[in-house]
C-alpha cells in the first residue's frame, strides 16, 4: 500500500515537473499550429469588434495582427477568440489563447498573482467625466452634488466614489446596467454627468443627438494602461509580442508608414536600415525573419495609422491622440532603440 502511494506521488510530481519543463514553449506551439489564437473583447467598437461582415476590426485586433505578421509574415495568420471579462485571464492561463489583446489594464496583482506578463501599452486610457455644455462646468472639481450615470460593479463606480470622497464632494450615482441604456439615460437628462473610460465617453458623445452639446472634462481620475498580455514561461514569445507593439510605435517616430515603407528601404539612415532589416541583426536576435518590422508596417501600419484607422478623430469615436501621442508630441508613446 505504502509503496503504491509513493508511486502515485512520484508520478504526480514528475508530471508536474514535466509540465514545468514543457512550459515556455508557447512560441514553438504557435509556430507548429501555424496561427496565433488571440483573445479579444468582441464588444467594444474601435478596439475589438467584428464589423457587419464578420471581419474583426479594432486597435487590439490590429495589435494581434502585427504579432502574426512578425512571426508568419502574414496578417491573416491569427484567429480571434472573443472573451468576456471573467474569462479572459483563465483563457490565457489554460492555453486556450496564446495572446490576450483585450483592453486589459496592467496592474501589479495581474502580473504576479495571475502569472501574466503585460508588454508595452498599446492604449493609455483613464476614467473621465462628460457633461452637457449648458451646465457650464469647466472642471470635475465643480461637480459637487451632481447625479452621475455609471455602470455597476466595475472599477469605474469605485473610482468615481474614491474621487468624490477624496475631494469631499457629494454625488448621487444613477446605476444602469447596459452601456447603450446608460447613454440614452444621460441624453434624456436623468443625470448631470456620465462617467466612464475616456475612450468610451468619446464613443458615447459620438452617438448623441447633438454631439456639440456635450463636453468631456479635462480631469482623468484613474490610470488604465491597456496592454497586451502573455502568460509567464516563455520569454522569447513575450519579447516578440513586446517588440511587435514597439515596432509600430518606433515606425511612427521614424516617419515610416505603410505607404512609404518601400521607399524607406532605400534610406541612408542606419537606424532606419537596422529597423527595416536592411542591416541585419534584429530579426536574428528575436528569432524572426529579418524583414519582420518591414512586414508589420507594410501590412498593418505604424501606431499612428492603426490609431487613426480605428479610434482616431475621423472615426465615429473621434478620439484625440492625447496620452497616446508620441513622446515627441507630448504623449507617452515611446520606443526603446531598435539596435
Amino acid at each position, binding site marked *: 500500500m505504502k509503496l503504491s502511494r509513493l508511486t502515485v506521488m512520484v508520478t504526480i510530481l514528475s508530471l508536474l515537473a514535466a509540465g514545468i519543463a514543457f512550459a515556455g514553449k508557447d512560441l514553438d506551439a504557435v509556430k507548429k499550429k501555424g496561427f496565433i489564437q488571440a483573445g479579444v473583447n468582441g464588444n*467594444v*467598437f474601435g478596439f475589438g*469588434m467584428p464589423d457587419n461582415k*464578420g471581419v474583426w476590426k479594432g486597435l487590439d485586433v490590429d495589435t494581434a495582427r502585427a504579432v502574426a505578421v512578425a512571426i508568419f509574415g502574414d496578417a491573416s495568420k491569427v484567429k480571434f477568440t472573443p472573451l468576456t471579462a471573467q474569462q479572459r485571464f483563465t*483563457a490565457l*492561463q489554460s492555453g486556450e489563447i496564446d495572446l490576450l489583446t483585450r483592453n486589459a489594464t496592467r496592474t501589479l496583482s495581474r502580473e504576479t498573482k495571475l502569472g501574466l506578463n503585460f508588454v508595452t501599452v498599446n492604449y493609455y486610457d483613464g476614467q473621465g467625466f462628460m457633461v452637457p455644455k449648458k451646465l457650464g462646468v469647466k472642471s470635475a472639481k465643480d461637480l459637487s452634488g451632481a447625479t452621475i450615470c455609471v455602470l455597476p460593479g466595475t472599477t469605474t463606480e469605485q473610482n468615481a466614489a474614491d474621487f468624490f470622497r477624496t475631494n469631499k464632494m457629494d454625488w448621487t450615482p444613477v446605476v444602469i446596467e447596459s*452601456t447603450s441604456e446608460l447613454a440614452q439615460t444621460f441624453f434624456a437628462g436623468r443625470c448631470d454627468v456620465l462617467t466612464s473610460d475616456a475612450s468610451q465617453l468619446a464613443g458615447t458623445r459620438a*452617438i448623441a443627438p447633438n454631439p456639440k452639446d456635450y463636453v468631456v472634462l479635462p480631469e482623468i481620475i484613474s490610470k488604465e494602461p491597456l496592454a497586451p498580455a502573455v502568460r509567464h514561461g516563455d520569454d522569447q514569445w513575450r519579447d516578440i509580442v513586446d517588440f511587435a507593439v514597439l515596432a509600430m510605435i518606433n515606425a511612427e517616430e521614424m516617419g515610416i508608414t505603410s505607404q512609404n515603407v518601400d521607399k524607406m528601404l532605400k534610406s541612408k539612415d542606419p537606424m532606419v536600415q537596422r529597423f527595416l532589416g536592411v542591416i541585419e541583426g534584429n530579426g536574428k536576435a528575436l528569432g524572426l525573419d529579418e524583414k519582420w518590422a518591414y512586414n508589420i508596417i507594410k501590412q498593418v501600419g505604424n501606431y499612428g495609422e492603426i490609431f487613426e484607422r480605428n479610434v482616431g478623430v475621423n472615426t465615429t469615436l473621434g478620439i484625440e491622440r492625447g496620452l497616446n501621442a508620441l513622446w515627441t508630441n507630448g504623449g507617452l508613446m515611446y520606443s526603446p532603440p531598435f539596435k
Partner: protein
Amino acid sequence: MSNPTTKATREFLKPPVTEVGVIGWLRSNLFNNWYNSLLTVIVMLLFWQLIPPAFSWAFVNSVWNTSAEVCRETDGACWSVIPQNINFIFFGFFPEDQQWRPGLAMVLLIALVVYSKNRNHWKKSLGIYWLINLVVMASLMYGGIFGLPVVETDQWSGLPLTFMLALFGIVAAYPIGVILALGRQSKMPAIKTLCVVYIEMIRGVPLISLLFMSSVMFPLFLPDGVTLDKVLRAQAAIILFSAAYVAEVVRGGLQAMSRGQFEAADSLGLNYNQSMRLIILPQALKIVIPPTVGVLLSVFKDTSLVVIIALYDVLKTTKVTLSNPKWTSYSTEAYIFLAVLYFICCYAMSSYSRKLEKELHTGH
C-alpha cells in the same frame, strides 16, 4: 277569438336591440355593472393613448432599409438596423462568400422538421432521412469535402448556432431524460442513487454556472495544449442540464400511471423492457406532453445564455451589432425583431405539441 296583441308578442316581438348583437355583447360583457364599465372606459383610454403612437412609430414614421444617418433624422422606428446588418445577425463570423452554406443547412433542417411533423411519416425511412440530413448539414457547415473550404466551429455563429444548440439539446436531452427517470424508479439501489444524485445535483445549479464550468474551469483540468471545442462543451452542458429536467417531468408521468397497468403488464408475462416499451412509457410520455414541451421550450430559449461564454448566438450577434455606435440607439427595434423570431419558433413548437396531444388522445 284570439287576442292579436298576444299573438304579435309571441311571434314578432324581437328581443330589445340592447340585448343582442354587438350592443348586447358589449352590454353583457363590458358594461354589465358600474366597475366593469369603469374598467372598460379606462382600458379604452389607455389603448387610445398607446396604440396610435405605437402604430405610427412602428409603421408610419419608420424607415426600413436606410443608412444610420437617415435614421437619425426620423422620429419613427429605424428597422434599418436589421437589413443593414442581417448577414452578421444571422450568420455571424461565417465567411461572407460561404454564407449560403449555413443558409441551405437551415432550410434543410426546417424542411425536415416540417416533414417529421406528420405522424404518417414516422417510419424507419424518416430516421434514414435524418441521418442523411445530419451528414449533409455537417458537411455544409464544416466543409472540407466537395471542394468546400473548411469553416472551423469557432466561426459558427448566429441563427445556425442557436438552432443547432437547441435542436441537439432537445433531441439528446429527451432520451437521456427518459432513461434517468426510469433509473430513478429502478429497484437497483446503485442505479437509483446515481440517477437521484445526478438529477438533484444538476437541478441544484443554474445553467449559467454549468456553462461557466464548461468554458472556464474545464480547460484548466486538461493537459497543456489540449483544447476541446467550445461549441461542443456548451452543447454538452445544455444537454446534461436539460436531461435532468426532462427526467423529473417523465417521472411525473410514470407516477401518474395506475398500479394496474404495471400489474397487467406483469401478468401478460412481459419482461421489464417489453412492459416499459409497449405499455408504460407510451402512456406516461403522452400524459406529460405539456410539461415536456415547457421544458423543451426553455431549452430553446436558454441557448441564448451561451453569450456569457462568448459564443455568438443570434442574440449575441445582434448585441454586437448594437455595440457599433452607429446603431446603438436602435436597440428597441433590434430586440423586437429578435422577440418575434423567438416567438415564431416557440409558438410553432407549442402549437405542434397541442396538435400531437389531440391526435394521441385515446382516453374516454
